[in-house]
């Protein structure tokens, strides 16, 4: 039992650290308040990694993966977190990509995988519907076969960054009479420029435009865009969700967040002393740090299991629940730490071109919107209640 990295792993860390330092683009926007970033900025690092051959490390090497061990992938994500890079969005790389190389035809692999690797094609996820959230299998969007096409009708929602998407992967009902709702669903790739698609923004409580409604009215999609078999889409959808959950713990990002929180708490004053010296607040920070180290070791244990050939199983539910609780707690404490300067809405600051306007310390500007925004983490990717259902069924066996 030991926590040391091997000399080879340390050499790998040096290599990726140098690569990030030398190649990460300067002057790209801030992560966290996404609608402030241009789509070009969001995709910039992805494209650089695509050229380097590092954009899809977890994929099998025959499809462009790097062949890194789970530990190397962990080091890679740690180093990116340390530098606060804007990583490739998950919709192509971690979601539809693995579905395509696992269940897609050779033609589909040739057609879609290169664009995901390079970052030139932007994907979005058409899963949730107004009436199908945690109960995803109750979705109503239909795909009706018409000659060589499907005709899609319905409404998707919470579609992240669909306003920039070139393609989407959609779950549609192809057999309304199937004995179980899970059995009549198909997984279909849709060109977002198809006639009949309308993307409408949803403004969230943080004031940002991150997610959308996607309305589909008689959208004609070639039947060749069906992944795998008709009515087997639920199998592919579940496979995708398990992929989505691995890496969701976000340990390295949260570690960086704790350091930032400590810097803020050292700068803020209470009774003439730094806030971090207040026993009440210091206790909250220590609790967070302790919970985070427990999560880190749990993730490393899972990683060691993967290294030994055990796939990510239901333990990823634990990582999701604890990881998101910590991410949320970080933003709560940051908002607490900034005091009154959590109140001004940075979106209302006049844009008069001068640099001297900002109110309060810089670190306070995004504290409230980020806290508001991060409430999503215990809801998305299978809510934390759904994760507990999964633990109940898969681990406890109830």
């Amino acid at each position, binding site marked *: *039992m*030991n*926590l*040391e*990295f091997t000399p080879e*792993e340390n050499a790998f860390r040096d290599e990726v650290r140098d690569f990030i330092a030398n190649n990460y683009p300067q002057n790209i926007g801030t992560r966290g308040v996404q609608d402030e970033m241009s789509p070009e900025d969001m995709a910039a690092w992805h494209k650089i990694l695509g050229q380097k051959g590092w954009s899809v490390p977890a994929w099998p090497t025959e499809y462009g993966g790097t062949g890194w061990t789970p*530990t190397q992938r962990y080091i890679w994500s740690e180093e990116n977190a340390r530098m606060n890079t804007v990583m490739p969005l998950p919709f192509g790389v971690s979601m539809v990509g693995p579905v395509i190389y696992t269940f897609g035809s050779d033609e589909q692999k040739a057609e879609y995988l290169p664009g995901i690797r390079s970052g030139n094609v932007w994907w979005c996820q058409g899963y949730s519907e107004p009436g199908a959230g945690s109960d995803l299998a109750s979705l109503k969007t239909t795909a009706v076969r018409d000659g060589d096409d499907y005709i899609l009708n319905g409404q998707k929602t919470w579609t992240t960054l669909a306003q920039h998407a070139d393609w989407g992967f959609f779950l549609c009902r192809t057999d309304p009479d199937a004995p179980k709702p899970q059995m009549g669903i198909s997984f279909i790739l849709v060109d977002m420029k198809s006639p009949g698609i309308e993307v409408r923004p949803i403004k969230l409580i943080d004031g940002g435009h991150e997610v959308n409604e996607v309305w589909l009215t008689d959208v004609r999609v070639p039947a060749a865009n069906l992944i795998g078999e008709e009515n087997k889409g639920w199998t592919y959808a579940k496979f995708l969700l398990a992929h989505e959950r691995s890496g969701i713990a976000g340990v390295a990002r949260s570690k960086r967040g704790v350091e930032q929180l*400590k810097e803020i708490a*050292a700068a803020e004053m209470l009774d003439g002393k*730094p806030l*971090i*010296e207040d*026993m009440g607040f*210091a*206790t909250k*920070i*220590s*609790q967070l*740090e*302790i*919970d985070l*180290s*427990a*999560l*880190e*070791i*749990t993730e*490393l*244990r899972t*990683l*060691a299991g993967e290294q030994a050939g055990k796939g990510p199983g239901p*333990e990823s539910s*634990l990582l999701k*629940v*604890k990881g998101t609780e910590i991410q949320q707690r970080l933003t709560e404490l940051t908002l607490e730490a900034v005091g009154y300067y959590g109140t001004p809405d940075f979106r209302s600051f006049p844009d008069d071109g001068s640099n001297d306007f900002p109110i309060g310390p810089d670190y306070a500007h995004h504290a409230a919107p980020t806290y508001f925004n991060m409430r999503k983490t215990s809801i998305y990717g299978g809510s934390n*209640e759904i994760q*507990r*259902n999964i*633990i*109940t069924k898969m*681990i*406890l066996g*109830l």
Partner: protein
Amino acid sequence: MDFDFTDEQNMVRDGISRLIREQYDWDTRRSVIESDAGWRPELWAQLAELGMLAAPFSEEDGGFGGATEAMIIMEEFGKGLAVEPFIPTVVCAGGALKHGGSAAQREEYIGGIISGEMIFAFAFAEPRGRYDLANLETTAKADGSDYVLNGHKAVVIGAPWSTHFVVTARTSGGRTDKEGISVFVVAKDADGVSLRDYGTVDGRRASEVYFENVKLSSDALIGEADNGLPLIEKIVDEATAATCAEAVGVMKVTNEMTLDYSRQRKQFGAPIGSFQVLQHRMADMLMEYEQSVSMCYLATIKLDEDDATRKKNVSSAKVRIGQSARFIGQSAIQTHGGMGMTDELAVGSYFKRLSIFESEFGSVDHHMRRHIALTAG
């Protein structure tokens, strides 16, 4: 990086696990803790024979391992709620001797521990000192090259069974000074040592130990005079990690019992384990357990690093596992309903052990404060 155990470590686990399973079933434990002796000396002899009492010592001292072996043994002890004094004897006294003892002391006392002939208790806590290891009213006054020991040590676990004590005492300075503390070996049958023995709420035995003008030769001093605190902190951290491992074992069985009960017990025409509100509580119990396993590994792995790293990680573990112990213990009783309140079911004893674990070697609040002192700013 790996979380694997060596073949030898797996053999230690298998050996202890079999011993506890075969000789420490629930009914046996109950009759043992209710007996006059309150423990099983014959089990201790078997542990010695199997070499288990040598497990955490180096080869030089006649052993074959270290902290990981102690962790494994205590986890298995926890599963069966074994009361035998492995932590006071092997981890605490053994630790004091292996880190601070002279060659002669190590040969005599570690030899005695490994053979099973010497049973130690660790007399460090005092009635007014709470968790502060340096807050000592017990004094050892120099008398030529000898010492004279006076004082009262509180809740000394395993003292009724012991042949010897490791005692912390003030040799100079004021009551809470970090300097001026020394560590001694004291034979229980020395003149001036008296005990008031009692049972503990979690099925063990302990004593209030009084020293009245106990004469100690300079051979009794372990380590440096007046500079004993770093040694005491180190062995208490090792004991904290070991008791965390014990709690992990206790929690594992507590969770299993709760899950089992939820499958059997029916209400409203269905097993209560089919109710989502209890399912989610048990999912939380599982997550608390897994986080505790992680923290137990972390604390154990970091024991041999520098003082600050060791302290930070041991305190992290004691906070996290202390909180998990409370949640799992209370949830287990709640899920068992009225049956959880009866003395008949084992779950009550597991709950009680977890409840007392919380304060052993420092409470959650104590370790939180130590963590803050080491990390804030």
